[in-house]
């Protein structure tokens, strides 16, 4: 696995998503596509072949539905997709904890997609295409991906890179603070982004009502969810006790 060295203190970026705030508007999905140059749907695209780095699920519960944004969980322990890639196109950046996908090296075997329990990875089933002229409106900091490669959320690597550059210009190294596109976009401010090495942020992630998706799998996701509604926890967390009792064990 490729290791990149960054001088100074390493970060472990993570997210806390408040499910009681998310209203399922989809602003995160569109902002993400704009920021990361994800092409608009092809005429034949379906929810199953679509390119979305973050997908907002509508989950029915005993009361009213909940909306659950699911992006790459940036698994920290035994990252399922990293070990399976035959040609090291997936890596974990030790300086950020972010799982990176290198589209230029990707063979398109899709083994990593099969490995991901969150189905957070998408495949370019065709060449990316924008309506005529719209490529002028692409984000210059992110290159478009080729057909036949896998892509996924990388916590807005372009923005992180810009923040690192800006910090370096000021002579600072190590962990930088920046805001991924979905976090900036969320009108309900349902997504909080921060460094899990930061004690205050980590405490929030561990507070009562917080959980991670499919925690027993042991993948150590760095995206946390939070809700005060027991029925939502039951329907979303994947914890058997939760589903049964509607209460956190």
């Amino acid at each position, binding site marked *: 696995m490729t290791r990149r060295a960054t001088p100074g203190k390493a970060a472990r970026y993570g997210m806390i998503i408040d499910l009681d705030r998310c209203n399922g508007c989809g602003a995160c999905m569109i902002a993400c596509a704009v920021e990361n140059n994800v092409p608009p749907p092809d005429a034949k695209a379906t929810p199953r072949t679509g390119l979305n780095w973050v997908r907002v699920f509508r989950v029915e519960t005993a009361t009213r539905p909940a909306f659950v944004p699911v992006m790459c969980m940036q698994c920290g322990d035994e990252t399922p997709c*990293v070990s399976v890639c035959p040609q090291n196109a997936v890596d974990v950046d030790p300086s950020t904890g972010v799982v990176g996908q290198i589209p230029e090296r990707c063979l*398109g075997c899709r083994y990593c997609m099969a490995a991901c329990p969150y189905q957070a990875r998408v495949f*370019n*089933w065709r060449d990316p295409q924008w309506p005529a002229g719209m490529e002028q409106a692409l984000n210059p900091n992110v290159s478009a991906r080729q057909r036949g490669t896998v892509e996924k959320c990388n916590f807005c690597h372009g923005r992180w890179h810009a923040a690192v550059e800006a910090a370096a210009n000021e002579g600072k190294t190590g962990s930088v603070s920046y805001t991924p596109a979905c976090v900036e976009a969320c009108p309900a401010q349902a997504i909080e982004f921060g460094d899990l090495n930061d004690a205050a942020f980590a405490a929030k992630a561990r507070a009562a009502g917080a959980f991670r998706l499919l925690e027993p799998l042991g993948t150590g996701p760095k995206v946390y969810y939070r809700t005060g509604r027991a029925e939502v926890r039951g329907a979303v967390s994947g914890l058997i006790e939760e589903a049964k009792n509607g209460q956190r064990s």
Partner: protein
Amino acid sequence: MVSALDRAWIPRGVVRAPLTRFGLWVGLWLGVFAVGAYAMYLCLADGLFHTNMDNRYVFGLWIFLDLTVIALGAGAFFTGFLLYVLRKKELKAVINSAVVLGLICYSGAMVILAVDVGQPLRAWFTYWYPNAHSMLAEVTFCITCYLLVLCIEYVPILLKNRRLRGIGGYLVFEHELHKLMVVFALIGTLLSFFHQGSLGGLFGVLRGRPFAFREGFAIWPSTFFLFILSAIAAGPSFIALTTWLVEKISRRRLISAEAYDTLARISGKMLMLYVLMKSLDTLFWLNQTAPARGFPAHRFYEFGNFGGWTLFIEIVILGLLPGLALIHAPLRAKRPVLLAAALAACAGVTLNRFVLTIQTMALPTLPFDRLMSYWPSWQEFAAFGAVVAYGVLVYSFSFRYLTLFPQERELTRAELMQRSQEA
């Protein structure tokens, strides 16, 4: 002119179909091949949206059939191992056919894989930037190396052709190569062990997919060993089946009853061992592995299409029953029983590969996700059809012009003598 050439290349002492019939047969399969080649062209030139695979079904018909074909092609390495290493002389009758089958299965699988990946031009990256942790890297290495071994093993068969033998240098080369065959059989066995295992490991290591994930020994999940076992159990059965099929199509007797019996016996024994291990593994997985990862076993089988019946059919009906039939000498002596059991054994392995690929993809992992179904597009069927056609063509030409079944000449002579006596 053509028919004279044809006759000159056909091995001595055997009878082959008239050239016109052979031509028709070849034409038919060339047609199938052409359609499939067009489908492959579409996928390569336009993109994989021509298939019905999607972000959930990242592996579809192709991977499922690749796994199956490679499992069935295991007959090549296992027969080689039994013949050259364990000195089971009676298998000499089928070794050439087994090698050709293996070559077809492996090269066909490679072709399909090249279409299946999104960026075939980057295939060599796996050698350039290999990830030692990846089962797929292991599979890629072993399969490409083993394909090379199969090619080398095919060369002597090719050089033994009546016309090619005439060239002096070729004969010497063939002779020398033959002496080395035990080495290649050993290398082939080693490589095959690893890639058959790695193909199983491919799914067994998916710790994010509790339906496929298995604990194991050291870095190898239990599916690693189960795949090896199931492949060497089904391999001989597949050889028996194909040989019988070739006998039917060519209307010739090709191998003796003893050869059938040996193949069936070995297949049966391995199948019984496999069923035992598979049952133990399943019990452990249902009661220990999956629940520990938050997935009680019933969650896998509560979907209508994929109920517990798949498990029952796979282990009992297509595992235990054919296994019992094949290890019981009086039963396997009956040709229909032997063939049915061999077919069931192959079907069982096919179902196992289906479950691991398709069912793993179909089952949701997120609690708020749902089961999904998938039906391949015509391009997927056609591309696979092309590989089948390619296999049939390679086998047909090999069968017509090379000596795939050394016993055939004797059996033909005996048959002719019998017929003349009757007359």
